[in-house]
Structures are given as C-alpha cells and as structure tokens.
C-alpha cells in the first residue's frame, strides 16, 4: 500500500492531478479526457456480461490504487527472466557452457536443441517501475537507422507526430470496456518501438515492467513496424510481492506490409496482482506476427488478445503457455480476426493447472465477408495436475466468407498413470516422470517458439512451479 499522502482512486481529482503532473501535447490530453469520460460512462463489468461470465471481480478495490502521479520510492528491479543467458556485452565463454536447454531446465533432461541463448545480445532495453520509466537504451547502430525505442512517456515529446499517428488510432480501442478506458486515461511509462521501412533489427529488444507491493502499472506498449521491417520484442511483467497490485495495460502492435515481428509477453506478476489488459496486433499484407504469451502470474487476469489480419497474405502465429496454481484465476479471450483474404492464423494455447486454480480460454476465429481463402486454426490443451483445478475451453468460429479452412479443438486431461508407470519402469522417479510428462505437454508449443531464451525462461518458470503430484 502507498505509504505517502498520494491520493488514491481514479476520480476526477486524481485524474486532474495526473494531467497536471504531465507536460503533454493537447491532442494527448484530449484523448485522455475522452477516455476518462468513457471510464465514467461504461458499466462496471459484471457476471451478466458474456465476456465476464466466468470471472468475478467484485473483490477488486480500484480505489486502493493510485495513478502514476508521483514517482514512488526507488526499488530495485527483479532479475529479468527473458534475458537469462542474454548479455549486452561480449559473450562470456563460461556463460556459454552453463546455458541450459529448456528440457533440462524443466526435467533434468537435455533436449537435442542446443541453447543458443547465450549468443544473443540485446539491441535495446527499457525498464519501468510503477509505470515510471527507469532506464531506456537503444544500440547506436539502430538509432542511427531511425529506429525509435524507449519510454513512451518520453518519446511522446520527442516524436509527437509519430506517436499521434498510431496511439489509439488503429489498434487500441479505449471504449472496448471500462478497463480499456481506464488504461487509455491513465497510461504512463510504457514503451514505444518504431522500426522504419526495411530496417531489420537482428537482436531482441527487452522491456521489463515492475511494480512494488501495492503498486500499479499502467504501461502502454506501442509497436510499429513499417513495411519490410523486422524486430523481436521481449516484454515481461513482474513484482507486486504479496501486497497486491494492479496492472491495467494495453498493447498496440502494427506490423506493416511484409514486416515481421516476434513479440513475447510474459506475465509473471506476484500471485496477489490484478491483471487487466487489452492487446491488439494488426498485420498488413504479407506481414508476419509471431506472438507468444506466457501467463504465469497474477491473482486474477482478464486479457483480451486480438489479432487482426488486415491485408492479403498476412500471417499470425499465436502461442500461449499458461500455468496456474493456488487460487489463481486466469481468463484469456483470444480473437483471430480475418479481415482480408488469403491470410493465415494459427493459435495454440497450452495450460497446466495445479491446486484450486482456474483457467478460462475463450477463442474466436472471425472471418469477414470477402476474406476468402482464409486458413485459421485454434487449439487449447489443458493438463490438470490436481483434482480441484478447473479449466474452461470455449472455442468459437464466426465465418462469413467462402472457401475457408477453419479448424478448432480443445482438450482437457490429466497426467496419465500409465505414462507415469512407463517412465518409472525406466528408472525415473514419480516426480521426474511427472515433470517429463508435463515438459512433453508443453513441448509442442515450445517447438513453435523460435527464441531460445524465451523457451528457457518459460521452461524454468514452469519447472519451479511443478510440485509433488498426488
């Protein structure tokens, strides 16, 4: 909880104080005011709304949290997960030897895939604490090619026209629901990545957003790849230890014609944090978006992940890795929206549930009239590691075009006793057998994640969570 006299809640007073604390262009202030008005008008989500039928937020006390007006006390950032094995300096030979592949991380078994993680360097890094930018770096080689990367807060003043062109204009919708409006009114810190036409960034860029206990994060991520550009962006969210916290976030991604973005979002908040987010990626003709979601943390999550294929030949691959335990409740709604013809979308979400936790996945493939020759796929597999966990999988198709291939599937199962016995008969302990089986369950989605450090981070995080299995 904030110990200072900072005003909490999202009232007209705190909103005005928030605006006054910022030196922003008029268009942005107007955008915020409109969003704040929408926040006042839109109904509080409740169980009578289809999207909120399975997720109860009556215990949320928004008034306990404060907008990012004053910089709080400095706290150090936790260790980043997605960059383990990634160095910004030259490669250390020892590190190279110590880099451990995913399957060994998870099971003590090394996969055939050798870890290349340690050979990666970062092209840039941006960190934030409680929605205030802490550091921001971009390799000079890319800055000189016109790449823009860093705190969205700061870049609004340096590149106002560029930000104005994209911020909440094409992807984000502040009126989607009350949390989308709250986010658009109060976003701060955040990250902006802009890659000019044809510029290819070989090394990943890294974003780390943290909160202190009781803190709030309103980070907004805006990613624009112009035609033919390429980049890899790794984002992770963590912190909020035990005292709770709030994330009300938004991600806007625009992948230009023939551009290619690999985007990873690892949500690893403490299990006391409320997480609300609207993510939307827009892919233009022949562009490619490989989007990986890791959902491990938070007390309760309600996320909308929306991919829109807006130009012919656009391609999106969506990978989801979820692991819940304790009383966590994670609710992810995905939408693969085919607005143009001859596009391909391929979604695979895999989740493992422990204890009394609950997952909801509701997926939709929407094919607009005229979006012929669509190839859409969605699948959700859940593995129950306890009797008391619950997973709801609700795939859906809405097709208004001809000549399309759309398939979906969902499975929910338990770890098979026969598999455990088979592995035990080969000398693996029961625990090792279960870890191997769970690792195998996730392998199919890990196989699709082409960034070694991401596979490693996710595998390691899951491994730490798997406890003894009754």
């Amino acid at each position, binding site marked *: 909880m904030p110990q200072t006299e900072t005003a909490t809640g999202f009232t007209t007073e705190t909103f005005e104080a928030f605006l006054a604390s910022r030196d922003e262009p008029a268009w942005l202030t107007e955008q915020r005011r409109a969003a704040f008005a929408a926040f006042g008008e839109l109904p509080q989500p409740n169980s009578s709304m289809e999207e909120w039928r399975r997720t109860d937020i009556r215990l949320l006390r928004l008034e306990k949290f404060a907008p990012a007006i004053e910089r709080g006390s400095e706290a150090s950032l936790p260790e980043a997960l997605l960059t383990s094995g990634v160095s910004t300096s030259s490669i250390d030979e020892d590190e190279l030897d110590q880099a451990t592949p995913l399957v060994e991380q998870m099971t003590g078994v090394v996969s055939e895939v050798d870890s290349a993680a340690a050979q990666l360097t970062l092209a840039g890094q941006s960190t934030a604490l409680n929605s205030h930018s802490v550091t921001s770096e971009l390799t000079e080689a890319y800055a000189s090619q016109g790449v823009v990367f860093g705190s969205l807060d700061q870049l609004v003043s340096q590149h106002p026209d560029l930000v104005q062109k994209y911020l909440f204009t094409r992807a984000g919708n502040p009126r989607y629901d009350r949390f989308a409006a709250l986010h658009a009114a109060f976003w701060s810190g955040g990250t902006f990545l802009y890659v000019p036409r044809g510029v290819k960034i070989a090394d990943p860029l890294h974003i780390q957003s943290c909160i202190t206990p009781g803190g709030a994060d309103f980070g907004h991520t805006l990613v624009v790849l112009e035609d033919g550009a390429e980049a890899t962006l790794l984002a992770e969210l963590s912190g909020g230890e035990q005292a709770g916290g709030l994330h009300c976030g938004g991600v806007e991604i625009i992948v230009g014609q023939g551009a290619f973005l690999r985007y990873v979002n690892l949500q690893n908040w403490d299990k006391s944090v409320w997480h609300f987010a609207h993510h939307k990626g827009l892919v233009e003709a022949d562009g490619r978006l490989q989007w990986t979601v890791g959902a491990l943390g938070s007390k309760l999550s309600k996320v909308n992940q929306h991919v829109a294929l807006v130009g012919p030949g656009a391609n999106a691959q969506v990978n989801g890795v979820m692991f819940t335990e304790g009383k966590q409740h994670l609710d992810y709604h995905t939408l693969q929206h085919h607005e143009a013809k001859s596009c391909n979308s391929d979604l695979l979400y895999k989740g493992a549930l422990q204890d009394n936790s609950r997952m909801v996945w509701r997926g939709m493939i929407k094919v607009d009239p005229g979006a012929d020759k669509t190839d859409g796929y969605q699948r959700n597999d859940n593995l129950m590691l306890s009797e008391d966990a619950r997973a709801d999988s609700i795939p859906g198709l809405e097709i208004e075009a001809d000549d399309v291939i759309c398939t979906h599937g969902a499975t929910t199962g338990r770890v098979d006793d026969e598999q455990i016995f088979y592995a035990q008969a080969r000398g693996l302990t029961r625990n090792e057998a279960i870890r191997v*089986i769970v690792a195998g369950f996730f*392998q199919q989605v890990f196989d699709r994640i082409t960034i070694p450090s991401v596979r490693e981070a996710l595998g390691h995080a899951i491994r730490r969570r798997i406890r003894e299995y009754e």
Partner: protein
Amino acid sequence: MISRTGDMTDTLKISNLHVNVGDKPILKGVDLEIIRGETHALMGPNGSGKSTLGLAIMGHPGYEVTDGKVEINGENILEMDADERARLGLFMAFQRPIAIPGVKMADFLRHASTNIRRPDRKEGEDLIPMREFRKELREKMGQLKMDTEFARRYVNDGFSGGEMKRAEILQMAMLKPKFAVLDETDSGLDVDAVKLASQSIAEIGREKMGILIITHHDKLLEHNTPDKTHVILGGRIVETGGPELAQELHQHGYDRIRAAHPEAAAEDDKMKVETAAAG
C-alpha cells in the same frame, strides 16, 4: 546388500506369487527362479496370466500382490516402486509401450540411463554428459539397424507396432539390465523384424542378462534358445521343461497340457469366462 556389480550369480526369484487385478485373482501361486545369464520362456494361452506376471514383477500399481515374494538376490522388491526396481537392474519390454508426446527418445533415455547407471542419483543431479550419451546411443542404434532420426522422435508417439518393439529393445540395450522381461516383444512384428529383434537381443549380450521371454509363438526363441520353458495355465506354472517344450507347444498347442492338468485348465476356462463377462 544387493550386488550391483556384474555378479553372474544374481538371481531373480519369484515364490508363491498371487496377484489380483481389481478383485479378480489372476496369478495363483507362481514359482520361478532365473539366474543371470539364463533365458527362460514363459508360454501359455491368452489370458492365462503371462502379462500379469511381467507387470507385477515390474511393480505396476494396478496389479495387487496378495501373497508371495519377488526377490532379487534375496531382497524382496515388492515394496519398491517401479523406478527402484529398475535401478536394481530390472527391465520390462512392454507388450503395449506407452507414448509420451513431446518427450524425445534421446532425452528420455538419457535420463533413464543416468538413473539406472547411478542408482543413488538424486533428483536434479547432473545427467550423463550429452556428448558421451549421444555417441553411445548412435552406436547402439547402428547395431540395431535403427535410423538415428528415431532418437529425435517423441517416445512411442505415432510409432508403428514394429517401431515400438524395436524402441523397447533399444532401451534395453542402453539400460543394460540384469533381468529383462520381454512381454510379447515378437507380437506385431513380421518375420524379418522378429529375426532382427532376436539377433538384437543376442547382440546385447544374452549371457549378461537373465531373460524371461513371454510369448505364445516360438519365433523369438529360434535365436534365443531358452534354457527353460515354463507353461502357465490358470494362473499357475504347470510344467517346466527345456527348449523342446516350447517347440511342442508351438507345433501342437496346449491340448496335452490341458489334459495333463485338468484343474488348471478348468481355472483357465473360468478366468476366460469372467474376462469375457467383464469385457
């Protein structure tokens, strides 16, 4: 104390073994002793309890031992989990191997080999170095005439019947058990595959293992002449002989055996009726 060295007097001894599956008695007092280096054949009609014996020896939790003992070098292993038994040097080639999707054969076997070769290894301790293991695995696969691509496939996932059986033999070759139960490793294989499997077993070093071959053919036995042949009927071993007994059963079936052991034959019929009713 159990010998973990290559002591050729290692013994697997089964005494008066009674096993239930659910409430149903399947084994009703099996006695069998295998000395390391010997090959035994276990034959019998379908449903007579052959696979039950294998799974009970290995420690499948669905097979409840109600009486009797299974000992390795005098130590009763019945209280041990399957992995502890495996670490003592026991192996079973499954009649129906289980698929573990997403887990590569090489990774699985590296973990298994480490545990078997270092029975005291604790969870989380290092595995056999990757390079060393890969080299050995490649060599073994070469001997068994297996494509090295096999190592990268997921354990038994999408394998054909024949591939599964060959994978079981590969695992046996890597794990180098003291005692191996081969449960119908010849079923589902064509003549050439059986020949290859037989040769493979011979190559692994028949003399270094105590082998129990469960079969109702004699194909696998052609290249692995049993020192002893046991016939199981109605949940008991009713006859034990040499290789000629396997030959006889293969050529003439179980009529003579049934006639000579009417009680066991009646038990066997009863078990089949119950199985059919349950099915």
